């Protein structure tokens, strides 16, 4: 179930995502989002420092960070697109591919692992009909991944569904939890 370590780092399998099927890109930073970015820029002495927050805005508006979004951010912050992509690929929370409507992250690091997190992952894979980590369910609703330490070890197993943080999830609670998302 755990992916192989390739060249020292994990390379998740996103092969099932068809990126061409998505709508043409429209700029994110117009109107409210542009004003938000302008406010952000006042907080830092350099434009570059607004890069992480700007990418968060792209992801919030588009559900993921497409290359066109990186290009847009690069232009606004006087950076090269390659530099922006270098930053995007460093951080695990920016989606470089579209994900399901509900992006489910289950913590399986040691403290949760010894409290049964593996079974929680299995329950999610079964009940969401995704079958495999990192794969979006056929109806496009769910993507389940394992995540490293969510920092709520005393509430094993913590699960994040998009922005929502859910504590103390057990395999038995998974069907109810998913039903509430419907």
């Amino acid at each position: 179930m755990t992916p192989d370590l390739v060249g020292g780092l994990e390379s998740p399998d996103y092969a099932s995502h068809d990126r061409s099927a998505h709508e043409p890109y429209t700029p994110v930073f117009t109107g409210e989002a542009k004003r938000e970015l302008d406010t952000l820029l006042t907080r830092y002495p350099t434009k570059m420092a607004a890069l992480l927050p700007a990418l968060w805005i792209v992801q919030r508006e588009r559900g993921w960070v497409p290359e066109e979004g990186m290009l847009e951010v690069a232009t606004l912050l006087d950076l090269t697109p390659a530099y922006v992509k270098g930053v995007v690929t460093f951080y695990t929370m920016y989606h470089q591919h579209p994900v399901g409507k509900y992006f489910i992250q289950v913590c399986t690091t040691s403290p949760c692992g010894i409290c049964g997190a593996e079974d929680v992952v299995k329950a999610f894979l079964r009940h969401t009909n995704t079958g495999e980590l990192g794969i979006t369910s056929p109806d496009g609703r769910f993507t389940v991944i394992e995540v490293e330490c969510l920092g709520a070890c005393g509430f094993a197993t913590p699960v994040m569904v998009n922005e929502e943080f859910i504590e103390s999830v057990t395999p038995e609670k998974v069907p109810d939890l998913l039903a509430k998302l419907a």
Partner: protein
Amino acid sequence: MGYPNHPHQRETPVLSKYFGDAEARTLDGWKKRGGYKALEKALGMSPADIVNVVKESGLRGRGGAGFPTGMKWSFMKPGDGKPHYLCCNADESEPGTFKDRELMRWTPHALVEGCAIGAYAIGAETAYVYIRGEFTEPLYWMEQAVKEAYAAGILGKNAMGSGKRIDVHVHKGAGAYICGEETALMNSLEGRRGNPRIKPPFPAVSGVFGSPTTINNVETLIAAAPILMNGADWYKKMCLSNPKSTGTKLFSVCGNVQRPGTYEVVLGFPFKEFLYDLCGGPNHGRKFKAVIPGGASVPIQTMEEAEATLMDYEGFVAQGSMLGSGGVIVIDDAQSMVSVIARIARFFAHESCAQCTQCREGTAWTTKIMERIRDGQGTMEDMDTLLDIADQMTGKTICVLSDSCAVPVVSGIKKFRGEFEALIQGRRFHPVIAAVA
């Protein structure tokens, strides 16, 4: 603890006093509980006096390294003509640690106040609170608190009418354990990949945006307020063992234990009573087997060592480990130590920034070999190989992530060699056998 249970009578709630008290999250509620009095007092003192009080109190960094906070602040020289910055490290990602999450989601104003005091003390006008992206709840509450504080004139160009400018900004991380390392945090804040920087220059000389910077943990900054209010002597007296370890410390307890949660005790508290009394001991029918007392990157303790430990910086070192971040991972006899260590190694392999060869390759090799042993495919030579790799990974890289991966492996092989050998010799791990052994 305060949430989800009431504090244990043997706890000393100073920072955790308002956990579970929803009203304390708001500005009005926080003021009713004495909030922002310490900042008011601080703004009436000279920065040098604040640094002296904190120095005198003996407060040490609560993020892991335990560096004296007052001394760190005193490295920031006033009048050097450059802007100074304070960074609050709220990237809490060390497996087993979740104390800062509780502090931020229950007492966000305490951190705003702590940041403002810290910023003023080091001559900074701007403080950045770098919170990991996964902490959606703490992020929400911190953003609310900052907004309220600006609206009330506590922050801004005339903070509390003092004529001093103090800005506090919340900065959201994007998923990288390594950004909890102070130089990586600064790179990330600047909009770069979170690769740690070579030191020197140290942050106090050239930190974020090339300016003198101090990086403090959430708990450290929050502790500054009660120290200023009650005085250094009050804080110094909270000490049960070594006088170099003063004050209270939050310990977040997780794993195979009856009552996981965040506990606040005076440093020097006996670890045995902490585990069996405060935390309720092992789950029904189980026995404790090992403890990792300071987050996943400190040496594993056997129960014999743990039960002889006094919970302070020196006490954990004397018993073969470190206090670290105070993230206590308790492991019982139903767990295979090899599996636990293999999973820790995988964590570090995933989180290596891949900048240094020893770390990039070492963490991945360690993971592969540990998982091979776990799956019954290991050989006796594997243990020597692991120790050899661990040696190559220690003290040879820019930051200590590499060392952190080696630590549990080395201590695990040393202290639980029998479990490694049993798996290698083809005996499957069985909890009952382990309990007898």
